[in-house]
């Protein structure tokens, strides 16, 4: 995965909320990794569900996609797909840059 910036355009009304929102997603990564270590697929599904629900609303559509993938994979107990999507989410959060337009 390249380290190129990922530009996301976000509504300026949400500017104050975005730092906290992104910080919470980083915490989600930690929770996801810990749940995956414990093979806690119920918790994984729940975190994925919540990421899917909230990402797109803030303008981070890809985030919702990763969340949805994790939720589906958790139902199938598919640790590999979950790991892949945690990595993609981690990389996304590292590279994302917000433009308020």
């Amino acid at each position: 995965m390249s380290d190129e910036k990922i530009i996301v355009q976000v509504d300026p009304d949400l500017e104050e909320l975005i730092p906290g929102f992104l910080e919470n997603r980083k915490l989600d990564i930690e929770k996801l990794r810990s749940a995956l270590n414990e093979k806690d697929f119920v918790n994984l599904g729940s975190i994925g569900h919540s990421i899917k629900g909230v990402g797109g609303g803030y303008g981070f559509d890809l985030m919702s996609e990763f969340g949805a993938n994790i939720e589906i994979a958790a139902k199938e107990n598919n640790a590999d797909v979950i790991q892949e999507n945690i990595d993609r989410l981690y990389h996304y959060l590292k590279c994302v840059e917000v433009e308020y337009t």
Partner: protein
Amino acid sequence: MITNKSELMIKVLIVDDDDDVLNLLETWLTKEKYDVKRASSGLEALNLVGIYAPDLVITDLYMEGMDGMALLTELHNDNPLLPVIMLSGQAQIPDAIKAMHLGTSAFLTKPINQNEFLETVSKVSPNLSDKSSFNEFAKSIVFESKAMSDIVEMASLVADNDVSVFITGSTGSGKEVIAKSIHAASSRRDRRFIAINCGAIPEQLLESELFGHEKGAFTGANVRHEGLFQAANGGTIFLDEVGDMPLALQVKLLRVLQDFEVRPVGSTKTYPIDVRLISATHKNLEEAVEKGEFREDLYYRLKVIPLDIPNLAERQEDIPVLAEHFLSDFSKKHHQTKKKFSPDAMRYLVSMPWPGNVRQLINVIDLCATLAKNKNIPFSLVKNAVHDDPVQLQTLKEAKHEFERGYLLSVLRITHGHVANAAKMAGRNRTEFYKLLNQYGIEPAKFRDKNIIEKEVN
């Protein structure tokens, strides 16, 4: 009485266990000028509903503890008309169908699209004109409680329809205040509001009072008398204590309500009437119907929209705002600086059982405001005032006095202030009758002016 800025805004309660979702929805809604409160669980939402009285609830479906479906059911148990929008991360058709069956107004899937969300909110929100009619209505009634808010909401919704409203509640609970507010909020507001206490007037007089009589209809009926139904034409008539109306008159009232016309006593002619009827009673009319004391057909004709006013003790949160209101009234009326209750005096007021309801509260407040030596009304004064207040039962002398005065007013109204005729109807000679009038400070001349009817009856 609702006093915050949200009076003119739609109030939305958002419920989700994810703070990021709450933050997002709150930002979108606030920008669109909605007044927003948030809850992190179904239980917190239920607790908030009583205090905040939202116009709309938006809830997540999947939450720890009480989920969105359970919350929807609880909300609608209390207020079936409250719009609820359900949000779900899953676009599962069975959930959506179940939610719709339970009465949800809309079902949206996450991630939420801002435009779709705001359009849905706008569509299911009550319109501001309904809300502003509620607020206009609420201005004339002082309350803070959910129970009174529900009554005011219902009353404001029906004010402009001509349906019969039936108000129940204990003596002194404010039935006439609600009736007057309904009249004031209706399109009949520029016409007359006439109130009559059916329990305070003897049967023969009550018939004449309500429906009128022709000259010579009975002894002492020397002039034609227009009844209150005709006097209220175009306006509203409020029949207080309708449960005390004798059975024979109930039949006549029923006929009036069915035919929209009255036939005065001793007349062969009927007169069309266009009157909105509001009635009230402190009695259990269902029981009276069962015992055969009240006509079932009339009961259902009156009780199209029932409003049950709770006792003051059941809505303690109204007591501080009512006390404040009556203290203001007292200071204006007596041109005095407004007094206030000390905190322990107010706590005592709030904790009292108030068997005489709002009327007793007014008596106590007036007494306290009169006797307080300085601006602060102390606990000791309130305690004495409450215990000295004989509101629970009138003395025989007071009851006789009240009845006699009501009787004299009625005969004078019927005879249009003609003392000789009134004395004849009352079975007294003129000198005795004049003595009685003097005793009660009643001036017969005032009854020669037709417009006095409303003032005196009210």
